[in-house]
């Protein structure tokens, strides 16, 4: 089963249009990684660079070449196998799954935000997206 997408809890900033592939489907709430200049694709692996969270469902082949992306906000997110710690920076562990960023990795684009609570594998936690990058 695919990992749960993120769900918006507090909208602290509106989404912005970022470039994406026209032909690719992206579900709402998908964690998006930066793939090229101001361009995002769905995340799929650990350590994907922070791009944002899809604010709308991108329908493949609908002619649109941008997607609305949240780069800020409080989201409900799923913790990966190693979990997240209260108040610590988070990075992707797998598609749409987060874990605590290693101590020496906070300055290389891995951070997606701060965990507002602790969670273990499969549990959901509040993620302060975009802060602390």
């Amino acid at each position, binding site marked *: 089963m695919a990992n749960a997408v993120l*769900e*918006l*809890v*507090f*909208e*602290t900033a509106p989404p912005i249009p970022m470039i994406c592939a026209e032909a690719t489907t992206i*579900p*709402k709430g998908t964690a998006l990684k930066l793939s090229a200049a101001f361009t995002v694709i769905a995340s799929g692996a650990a350590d994907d660079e922070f791009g944002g969270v899809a*604010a*709308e*469902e991108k*329908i493949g082949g609908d002619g649109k070449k941008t997607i*609305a992306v949240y780069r800020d906000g409080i989201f*409900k997110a799923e*913790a990966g196998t190693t979990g997240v710690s209260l108040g610590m920076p988070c990075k992707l562990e797998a598609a749409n799954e987060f874990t605590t960023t290693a101590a020496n990795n906070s300055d290389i684009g891995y951070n997606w935000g701060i965990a507002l*609570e*602790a*969670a*273990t594998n499969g*549990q*959901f*936690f*509040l993620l302060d997206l975009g802060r602390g990058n």
Partner: protein
Amino acid sequence: MVYDAAAEKDIRGIDIDKLVKGFGELTPTFKNYCNKSKTKSREIRWYRKGLSLATAMNPLDSLTTNGVTGSLIANTSFKSIPTVVEQKWER
């Protein structure tokens, strides 16, 4: 079950009619309890409200996480923004 909220494909751009409806051709056991509507459309799609956010006391309340299980709607403090709550629909 796959439920769609605003900005998702199944219900994007659709004015959802919230009335309960029934076909006249069906066995009319409960027909009198339903709204009936005719259509000349080639295709009809039916949606129903998702129950993923529902509880007995709160038909539609805020999300819960590992550590936050109480309502984020109740007791919202002065000057703070409200939580996001979305009704979801299943096609």
